[in-house]
């Protein structure tokens, strides 16, 4: 360059800060270094991984971790218990061979760990059997609600033309208190396992659909979805690949939360008298039986044992669900 005046040839530069740290530096250092273009590409990477951070956050929550283990143990035991030796059938009415009368209301003992109920059935095996039933209802309802909710919610949220219709239908359904829907349906159908499942699914699916819809509306118009549309990606694949993966965490949370909710409703419906038939032990039935004889303080164990189990299960699911939701929210990954 004609005007080529080198920087260093300007007025002698003076160090104004930091002292002359390099005073004794090797003069060889003042030569040009080799330049590696790819090195520049590699710096600045974040090592952030969504699922790793989620796991990390979750593991930091000690309470949740404890409940996870507890819940896992209970769940496993519920299904293992019938396979163990010396277990009685939950519906067997135990009769004293000496007198020929039922072992009514026996308090907990080495023989009957949780005692017996008012007609001599073994409370220990009834509780595990009941837990099995209630959990099964909870899980089936949770899964069905999710499947229905996601299917309808995804269409509702993503297909603009469907929005109006779905919204109006939802407004009608949502206007009726859940309690009333449940009671009405359970009342109309005969008391049975299926009735419980159908009634609870009917009462809950639209809430899930609404939730999924809102989530999808939030992410539907983000640019990456527009990009997929420009590339001609069919709607079903956009929903499967672009939308649902973002919802995995919230969907898991909703399922986890619907299980304790379902158990709660089951107990409630049983109390009203339209729950499961007495012949099927369930946590609702057990609590209800216990309630009927709670006036006698010495028999309250019949209420307290099932209550403890219900509480542990529901609290665990609830806390775990929330802990997972917190952990899976990228905003909390600080």
């Amino acid at each position, binding site marked *: 360059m004609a*005007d080529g005046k*080198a*920087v*260093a040839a300007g007025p002698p530069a003076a160090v104004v800060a930091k002292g002359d740290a390099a005073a004794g530096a090797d003069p060889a250092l*003042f030569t040009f270094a080799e330049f590696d273009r790819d090195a520049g590409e590699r710096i600045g990477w974040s090592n952030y991984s969504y699922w790793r951070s989620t796991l990390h956050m979750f593991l930091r929550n000690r309470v949740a971790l404890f409940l996870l283990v507890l819940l896992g143990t209970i769940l496993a035991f519920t299904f293992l218990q019938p396979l163990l030796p010396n277990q009685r059938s939950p519906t067997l009415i135990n009769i004293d061979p000496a007198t020929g009368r039922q072992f009514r209301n026996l308090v907990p003992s080495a023989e009957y760990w949780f005692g017996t109920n008012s007609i001599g059935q073994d409370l220990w095996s009834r509780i595990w059997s009941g837990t099995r039933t209630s959990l099964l209802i909870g899980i089936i309802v949770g899964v069905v609600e999710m499947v229905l909710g996601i299917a309808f919610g995804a269409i509702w949220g993503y297909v603009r033309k469907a929005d109006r219709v779905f919204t109006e239908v939802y407004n009608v359904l949502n206007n009726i208190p859940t309690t009333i829907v449940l009671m009405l349906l359970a009342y109309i159908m005969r008391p049975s396992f299926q009735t419980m499942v159908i009634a609870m699914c009917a009462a809950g699916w639209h809430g899930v659909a609404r939730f999924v819809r809102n989530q999808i509306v939030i992410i539907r118009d983000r640019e990456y979805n527009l990009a997929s549309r420009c590339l001609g990606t069919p709607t079903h694949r956009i929903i499967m690949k672009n939308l649902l993966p973002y919802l995995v965490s919230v969907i898991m949370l909703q399922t986890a939360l619907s299980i304790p909710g379902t158990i709660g409703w089951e107990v409630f419906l049983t109390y009203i008298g339209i729950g499961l038939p007495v012949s099927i032990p369930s946590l609702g039935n057990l609590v209800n039986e216990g309630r009927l004889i709670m006036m006698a303080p010495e028999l309250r164990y019949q209420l307290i044992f099932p209550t403890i189990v219900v509480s542990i299960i529901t609290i665990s699911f609830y806390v775990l669900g929330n802990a997972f939701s917190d952990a899976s929210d990228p905003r909390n990954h600080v």
Partner: protein
Amino acid sequence: MDGRKPILSVRDLVVKFDLRGRTLTAIRGASLDLLEGETLAIVGESGSGKSVFTKTFIGMLDQNGRVDSGSIEFEGADLAGYATEAEWLRVRGRKISMVFQDPMTALNPLRSIGRQIQEVVEMHRGMSGRQAELAAIELLDHVGIPDPVRRFRQFPHEFSGGMRQRVVIAIAMACKPRILICDEPTTALDVTIQAQILRLIKALQSDFGFTTIYITHDLGVVANVADRVAVMYAGQIVETGSAEDVFYDPRHPYTWALLSSLPQLGVKGKPLFSISGTPPNLFNEIKGDAFAPRNPRALRIDFELQPPMFQVSPGHQAATWLLDPRAPALEPPAAIQAMRARYPGGER
């Protein structure tokens, strides 16, 4: 420094953030003098720390951030040592005000514009009721909002982006601050509105006589507003000087790169000067000059030792080993030489 006194002096400021169990050093020993009455522009890319740097002046770092060391001297006190809210309330919003980037979200949507200005007036000027209301209306008028009496009762959603930014500026003016920090005040606005807002801030500055700090990544805006410029990279100030110094005679390779990669200085049809790679990850320890890995003409020493601030001329400093007498001579890129030629003062 042309005889003016510094109103705010920052020395060797280090700011750290705790994130995901790791520590990020956002400001890595930055020093700066702000001179009474001037407009200083701090230029830097996102993540360079320019925003964090100024947030420390009013104690508004995020919860997980802290000033690790260094000092911020203002009116005889060291702001870096402030810990309690009570201490900060003596400064924040009274002596030093701030205007934020996005006027669409900076106002409470549920309270009228007037009430939001009035509450600052009441708080800082000891006025109340009708008197404060009148003062608020006067402020609205001063920032160029037509029909201020009617506008006073309206809500933020009834204002356009530019008008909302004027309201935010009115709020910042309410206490007649000594320093106004404008954090990218026009980035979210259209260019035509941007020009008007920049003009407004200049007019207010001459009316009220405060000192302004601009944070921006837009060198065009810098050229428009700044008396002095500080260039930030990876949490450090790498060059400071008057606007003329920095635009027509920059010395740091990063400043060169920044300027010459601007399309305005490019020649159509030819590739622009471009900087490869991306800024460094501030979670990592940085050895030597943070810009070295992206600098094709880096010296060996740039990878070994952090360069000190070299004085180029009075008021112009740059932190690069190129200014060391032992360094080899290096031509700035063509675009910079062209800029230098455009300076009417000619050869500097």
